[in-house]
């Protein structure tokens, strides 16, 4: 039942000793990068001064802005020739955050994905349909390599093309799918349309749900409809991608692989660690990354550690489903979107007024983004065609940037609520 029993079940003290040993190496490696080299010099930190796990607090936090500002190579700790792959965070354009991997990085990442899948019972005999986008996004290739390592037969279906997905499941006896939860819900209507009942007409037994937060209720719906056990998966490209934390068969929180990462939960206001079991922002440190070590990365994801041991026997602590974000990032259909991206695009379009509002709705099983945009007073010439052209232009421009087609509604100048202080840009009406 264990992929690496010694690692997964090692006593806590031993795991922490392993973490410390790896942390020292990781900090040492990081100091070879421009970013951390300069940072350590500036604050007078000697990597040799890290002698306990608590000493990690001597290292300042790293943020997404740091990654952006030192794009593309400022975090590299190895010569460029040692790199074998890059990935990038999903959705964002402009200055996306880019992560580089050496062969060893890919191997370690593949290993934790394989470990995660194996933990849920996936074996060589399984047929794994990977319904995630392949490419810069880590969800596709990350799972692909992990499943290959387990030895399952992979159907690299990629995302979209719903009817073909169902056909593939039937033709090749798919047992395991990796899917974005909102797409899993959407796909239920396609199953009904083509008259296929996944419980009766497929061999599905498990689903990996990733790339966007979802509720327990959504999981139950998916399990019910597909006749599977659905496992929550957590990852972010800055920390490799999927495989950072994963649910075991007890489905009560995700084991975060602490031999690969140091987990901290901090109070985002005070930056101090919270008490075990309290909610806060997750901060992660890579322990085995060679190409681009990242120390104390602020994930902006809110969660807590579930106290106490898990019945499965693994010592790696469990985090709860992600509760939200400490920034205003939206996750829609698995794509990460920052309201600032939309604001920048809108303000470049002539005819757009001063205010806008993003509304997220759930229509059936589909998530929908509505962008209400105030029209500039001086733009209006009394012509409906002109307004319609503006609306279409906004749709096209946003679509090219955020990869999702929003519904755009033009509203009168001053029609949107003015807020005092920080503008309210997003209303999330999605409920489960």
């Amino acid at each position, binding site marked *: 039942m264990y992929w690496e029993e010694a690692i997964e079940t090692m006593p806590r003290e031993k795991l922490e000793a392993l973490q410390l040993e790896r942390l020292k190496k990781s900090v040492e490696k990081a100091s070879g990068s421009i970013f951390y080299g300069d940072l350590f010099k500036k604050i007078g930190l000697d990597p040799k001064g890290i002698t306990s796990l608590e000493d990690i607090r001597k290292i300042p936090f790293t943020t997404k802005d740091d990654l952006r500002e030192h794009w593309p190579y400022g975090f590299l700790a190895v010569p460029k020739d040692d790199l074998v792959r890059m990935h990038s965070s999903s959705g964002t354009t402009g200055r996306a955050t880019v992560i580089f991997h050496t062969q060893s990085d890919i191997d370690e990442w593949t290993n934790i994905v394989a470990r995660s899948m194996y933990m849920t019972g996936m074996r060589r005999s399984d047929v794994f349909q990977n319904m995630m986008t392949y490419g810069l996004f880590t969800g596709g290739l990350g799972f692909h390599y992990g499943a290959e390592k387990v030895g399952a037969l992979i159907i690299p279906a990629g995302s979209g093309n719903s009817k073909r997905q169902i056909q593939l499941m039937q033709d090749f006896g798919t047992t395991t799918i990796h899917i974005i939860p909102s797409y899993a819900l959407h796909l239920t209507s396609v199953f009904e349309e083509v008259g296929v009942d996944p419980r009766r007409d497929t061999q599905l037994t498990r689903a990996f749900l990733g790339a966007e937060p979802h509720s327990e209720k959504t999981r139950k719906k998916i399990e019910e409809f597909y006749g599977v056990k659905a496992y929550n998966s957590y990852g972010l490209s800055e920390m490799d991608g999927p495989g950072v934390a994963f649910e075991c068969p007890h489905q009560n929180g995700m084991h975060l692989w602490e031999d690969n990462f140091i987990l901290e939960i901090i109070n985002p206001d005070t930056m101090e660690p919270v008490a075990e079991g309290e909610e806060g922002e997750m901060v992660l440190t890579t322990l085995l990354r060679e190409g681009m070590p990242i120390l104390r990365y602020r994930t902006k994801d809110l969660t807590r550690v579930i106290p106490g041991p898990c019945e499965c026997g693994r010592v790696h602590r469990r985090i709860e489903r992600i509760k939200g974000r400490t920034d205003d990032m939206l996750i829609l259909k698995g794509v990460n979107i920052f309201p600032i991206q939309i604001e920048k695009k809108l303000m470049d379009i002539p005819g757009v007024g001063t205010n806008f509002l993003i509304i997220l709705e759930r229509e059936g099983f589909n998530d929908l983004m509505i962008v209400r945009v105030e029209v500039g*007073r001086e733009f*209006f010439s009394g*012509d*409906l065609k002109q*307004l319609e052209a503006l609306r279409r232009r906004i749709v096209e421009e946003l679509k090219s940037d955020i990869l999702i087609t929003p519904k755009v509604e*033009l509203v009168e*100048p001053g029609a949107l609520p003015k807020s005092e202080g920080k503008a309210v840009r997003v209303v999330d009406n999605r409920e489960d």
Partner: protein
Amino acid sequence: MIAYQLSIFAENKPGRLAKVTRILKKGKINIRAMTISTSDAFGVINALVENPESARALLEKEGLTVSLKEVIAVVIEDKPGGLDGLIQLLFEQGINIENAYGFVLESRKKAVFVVDVDQLDQTQKILKNAGFETLDTKALSAIEPFHYMNY
């Protein structure tokens, strides 16, 4: 002659038209004709009113987004084929009508057909040469309701 039509940008929801007519009533502005065109979530209210300049000022003071649009108000006969004569002429001359609406001036005798076209000058010339009477804003305001007197 050119007439001015009020075009008001409005969200497509209950209460927007009511706001417009309330403001015009308060300003004692008479409405000659009105049309609404919508595109899903939003639309444009077009109104031919007496004294469009002050109507615009009143509406804008209440926060509405208003534009004065040049249109042509053509006098036609209020009888079968009255409109057809005008439309066939515009068609033959290759004039495309973006928006149009009409109202009766004198039952069975006279009506006004308001057209919104891209080629304003050319259209005016064509109408003049064909002998059509057009009304400007002042003339539209001055029109007496003849049909009352006919009773």
